[in-house]
């Protein structure tokens, strides 16, 4: 509650005309602890992560994007831009040839090293939680001289999540098992996906002790008997029928009550990208867990 109030105050403060513009040079610290300094609002931005692309566009800087990674596909306009490989297989020459004045990369890509050597400012990081998503959007607003847009966006997202939470406050939260792939890998506390599930009013059967991305013993799923199973591996060909055919899984409540949900590619994108479609992600999940409530 305090946090929400603080954010609201922050938003209102930013809406005051004096706080509208970023005073360059501006310095922020990225996820690797590096200081990132921009001397002017960047006009040629490269994003090497789909969530960064979405965030840049959501704070109304889409026009400054000159290139994106292969997986960036939202908003639709970015598909017109040159694609530059992905975070772990980047086309460095193509990036440099675009003469960017600011590049956003994943913290594990290592891309900041060669780009920094060429004098190109790089932000290396990616939000891993809902709170970090808000923080990142605010930071991005500062860097791109879009502080107002960022503050409004964060306020709107917080409002959307609060709205869902208030509706769900009196509703029973079903248990859920999220399947990232048929190994089965899953998500647990500490992951963005787990926070989305929680925000959408469901209870993850994966516990904190199991870690954020555990490979779960199938026995555990049978014994926990979740009410929902989310197949985020459905775009890769895993079906509800496959799940029903697994040894011992045929009698699961989720299987018997047809609550094994095949997540489509678009939804999978929204759920996996910690960015401005956070509200949409929670609403879609809430629709799955609480059909007819919204």
């Amino acid at each position, binding site marked *: 509650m305090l946090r929400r109030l603080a954010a609201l105050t922050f938003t209102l403060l930013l809406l005051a005309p004096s706080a509208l513009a970023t005073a360059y040079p501006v310095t922020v610290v990225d996820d690797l602890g590096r200081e990132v300094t921009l001397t002017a609002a960047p006009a040629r931005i490269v994003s090497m992560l789909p969530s960064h692309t979405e965030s840049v566009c959501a704070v109304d800087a889409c026009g400054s994007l000159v290139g994106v990674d292969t997986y960036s596909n939202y908003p639709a306009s970015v598909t017109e831009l040159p694609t530059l490989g992905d975070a772990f297989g980047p086309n460095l020459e193509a990036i440099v040839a675009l003469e960017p004045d600011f590049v956003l990369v994943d913290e594990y890509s290592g891309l900041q090293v060669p780009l920094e050597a060429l004098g190109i400012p790089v932000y290396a990081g990616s939000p891993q939680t809902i709170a970090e998503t808000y923080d990142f959007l605010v930071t991005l607003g500062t860097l791109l001289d879009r502080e107002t847009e960022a503050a409004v966006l964060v306020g709107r997202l917080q409002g959307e999540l609060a709205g869902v939470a208030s509706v769900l406050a009196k509703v029973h939260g079903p248990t859920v098992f999220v399947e990232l*792939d048929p190994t089965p890998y899953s998500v647990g506390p500490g992951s963005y996906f787990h926070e989305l599930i929680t925000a959408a009013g469901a209870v993850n059967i994966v516990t904190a002790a199991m870690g954020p991305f*555990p*490979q*779960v*013993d199938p026995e555990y799923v049978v014994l926990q008997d979740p009410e929902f199973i989310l197949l985020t591996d459905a775009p890769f060909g895993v079906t509800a029928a496959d799940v029903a055919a697994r040894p011992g899984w045929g*009698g699961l409540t989720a299987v018997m009550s047809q609550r094994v949900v095949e997540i489509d590619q678009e939804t999978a994108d929204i759920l996996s990208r910690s960015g401005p479609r956070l509200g949409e992600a929670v609403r879609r999940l809430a629709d799955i867990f609480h059909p007819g409530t919204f």
Partner: protein
Amino acid sequence: MPVGPRRSRALALASSASALLAVLVVAVAVGSVWVAPDVVIGAVRKGLAGEALRPLETVVWQLRLPRVLLAGLVGGGLALAGVVFQGVFRNPLADPYLIGTASGAGFGAVLVMSAGASVPVLASLGAPVVAFACSLVTVLLVVFLARVDSALPTVRLVLAGVVISSLFTAGTSFLLVAAREQAGGILAWLLGGLAFSTWSQVRLLAAVTLPALALVGAFSRALDLLQLGEEGASLLGLGVERTKLLLLGVATLVTASAVSVAGIIGFVGLIVPHAARLAIGRPHARLLPVAALWGAGFLILADLLARQVIAPVEIPVGIVTALVGGPFFLWLLRRRADER
């Protein structure tokens, strides 16, 4: 009074078999929940009769029992294949994956996992079938490339195997990099795992592995002779090429079936034969069944650790076999050195 070879064989077999039985009982009882013996017996009775199962009984009958049995069959099969490969190649570094079985299977499985969604034919066949097929194709390719007229020189076989393996491994790595979003699951498969073992897999593997054990056992004298070198063996009246082909064929079939259901589980096929040889000596009539029993027990234990160490989170069993098997083997090796 010294124990005769027949007696000592019976002794080694009986003690290994009872150790395996003990391991089996423990592995079925221990898991994400501890299951009391009467529940296990009840689950087996109901399972065999096809009656409805309570949740805990479902876990025992549909998940844990097939898993334990499959681990035993895979481990036993890999150890058997390891004895054959080391015997035929007369090379202590030979393992069941030497001539491309694993790299071919790995490539096939990863192909299905990464491209299955866009190529429905692959998806409908499933990873195990494609892995098995690729495995056999790889080995045939290696044999074809290594062949000189009707002979199959061992050195050429090893070289062709290593090079073809590198090629397929390169292909696998490429698919892995290209299908990055599924890399975790693919990597877990490559490191081996028995999480979704089914009764049909148990039946399939039993139908391959148990006859193979009998068949290879019938050739244990030939394996002994091969240790004299190919010339020595042929002087003693052994049809060397035919025997080699038959033994490698059977071992490959066992390995490919094991890989197709459980992924690439390293170390069992390399270490268990050595451990058994260090402990009970060379004659293959004794070595083959003991190594198979030890392989079965070892992999059941390794899988138990894999699902139990940080339960209910799993570790790929291939990591456990190396982590546990390596130090144990080194200890065995040192102990033998001390005795000398």
